[in-house]
């Protein structure tokens, strides 16, 4: 991201050689966005109405590597298996945690985009989660801050919204089966308006603590066109009974295995 930003600034300076100060470069960066970015605003629905349970077995999600498998480092593959076998009571959504990036793009129900000149806000039905992605050229927040949804900054490349996300904590999973990442995860997402009612989505994921190299997922969002469609309130903590279905041994609250 830093490289990309530097390149954009450099391009601006080349186009306007009279501009030299940092403040002027900032101004020039805006003027290089000559074309009006497309408006992604509206209600959208992905392909996984029941949520993404397993990112590897769900067809067509992982497009790189060609195997469709997450390129775990060997010891990390073992940890993912252990999560599935022994730690399902730690599954983050069970605890009403937000899903993290890119998992949040694969949750059940729809989401909403509200786009303005300075930011692209995304608000989900599920978990009442949201992301506010500034597109004003600002840098990431200090590395000491870790967030469930990370820190996202966006920029327009023609008709594509490119979002760079860092500062995620290691408390979210990549699906609900135990595939995971560390707090070194770095995600670059691309949202492209393919036609008025379709957004093509892809995300490149890297995390040197967990994976041997970058890998890529894709998804398609279709516009929810019902004129009176609304998102309602989602209360998770307030009614959560999930942990009653796991024994104390498995991290839940049940004294014995519920039927």
């Amino acid at each position, binding site marked *: 991201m830093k490289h990309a930003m530097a390149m954009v600034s450099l391009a601006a300076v080349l186009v306007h050689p009279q501009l030299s100060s940092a403040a002027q470069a900032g101004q020039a960066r805006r003027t290089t966005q000559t074309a009006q970015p497309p408006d992604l*605003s509206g209600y959208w629905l992905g392909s996984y109405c029941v949520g993404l349970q397993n990112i590897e077995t769900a067809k067509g999600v992982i497009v790189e590597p060609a195997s469709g498998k997450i390129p775990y480092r060997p010891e990390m593959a073992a940890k993912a298996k252990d999560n599935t076998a022994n730690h399902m009571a730690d599954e983050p959504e069970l605890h009403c945690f937000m899903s993290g990036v890119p998992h949040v793009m694969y949750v059940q129900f729809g989401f909403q985009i509200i786009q303005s000149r300075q930011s692209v806000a995304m608000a989900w039905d599920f978990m009442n989660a949201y992301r*506010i992605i500034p597109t004003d050229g600002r840098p990431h927040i200090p590395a000491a801050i870790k967030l469930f949804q990370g820190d996202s900054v966006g920029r327009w490349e023609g008709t594509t919204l490119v979002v760079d996300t860092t500062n995620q904590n290691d408390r979210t999973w990549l699906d609900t089966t135990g595939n995971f990442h560390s707090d070194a995860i770095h995600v670059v997402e691309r949202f492209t308006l393919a036609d008025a009612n379709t957004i093509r989505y892809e995300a490149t994921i890297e995390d040197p603590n967990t994976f041997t190299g970058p890998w890529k997922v894709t998804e398609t969002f279709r516009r929810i066109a019902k004129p009176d469609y*609304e998102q309602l309130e989602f209360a998770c903590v307030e009614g959560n009974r999930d942990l009653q279905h796991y024994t104390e041994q498995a991290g839940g609250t049940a004294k014995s295995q519920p039927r």
Partner: protein
Amino acid sequence: MKRALAGWVVTIVVAAATVIAAGAQSRQSYAPPKTADGQPDLQGIWQVLNTSAAWNLEPHTASWGVPAGLGVIADPPDRMIPYQPAAMARKRENFQNRDAADPLAKCYKPGVPRLTYLPFPFQIVQSPQLVTIFYEYIHNYRTIHLNRATHLEGIDFWNGDSIGHWEGNTLVVDVANFNDETWFDRAGNFHSDALHVVERYTRTDANTITYEAAIEDPKVFTRPWKMSLPLVLHREPNFRLLEYECQAYAEDAAKESKK
């Protein structure tokens, strides 16, 4: 130290009172900026200046960890909430049990208007049909529908159902369909499911929204009452909402105490 703290609290309260007075004076004259579609522009990240309202809306002396407050109730003139006798008894009971009984102690949604004056920032985003408010506290967001004239039927929400319209430069939000599980503050001030709130957001200068909430609930109060308090714009460069994930931190604390 105690004196120093008291002095600090008085300074804040006096500052708040000054801002309220200034807001009232300039309300008629200030012309707020407009959005692209011509609505008064409330967009930005805002936060309450009065840090004592979240503890107790009524005038109160300081206590351990709680700053004193002149109260934010603008009507009735005695600045006290006009409880019916039985409701007053319940309020006293709530106050006695507040540490455990406060819905916020269980990480529940704060309800309206309490989410406004919690000591956390929130971001207002506008589109022609909707005003969306994203709150940092427990990643709560609410949608104010400018495109719907009546409340939904037969469904209640922790944060109620919000419909809005503009009266001059004031966003007027009618909020109904509440449950009876939220409080107004930490002091145990409460309502029933008959609660009806009318909020008024007026940008009274570039850095201030004067916020008013008129409250009625014939099951609990003898008459309608009203609160008024200023909200201040965050102007720090690159300021953004972070996260306060109550449920996650509560789990951490519980694990820590088991060690």
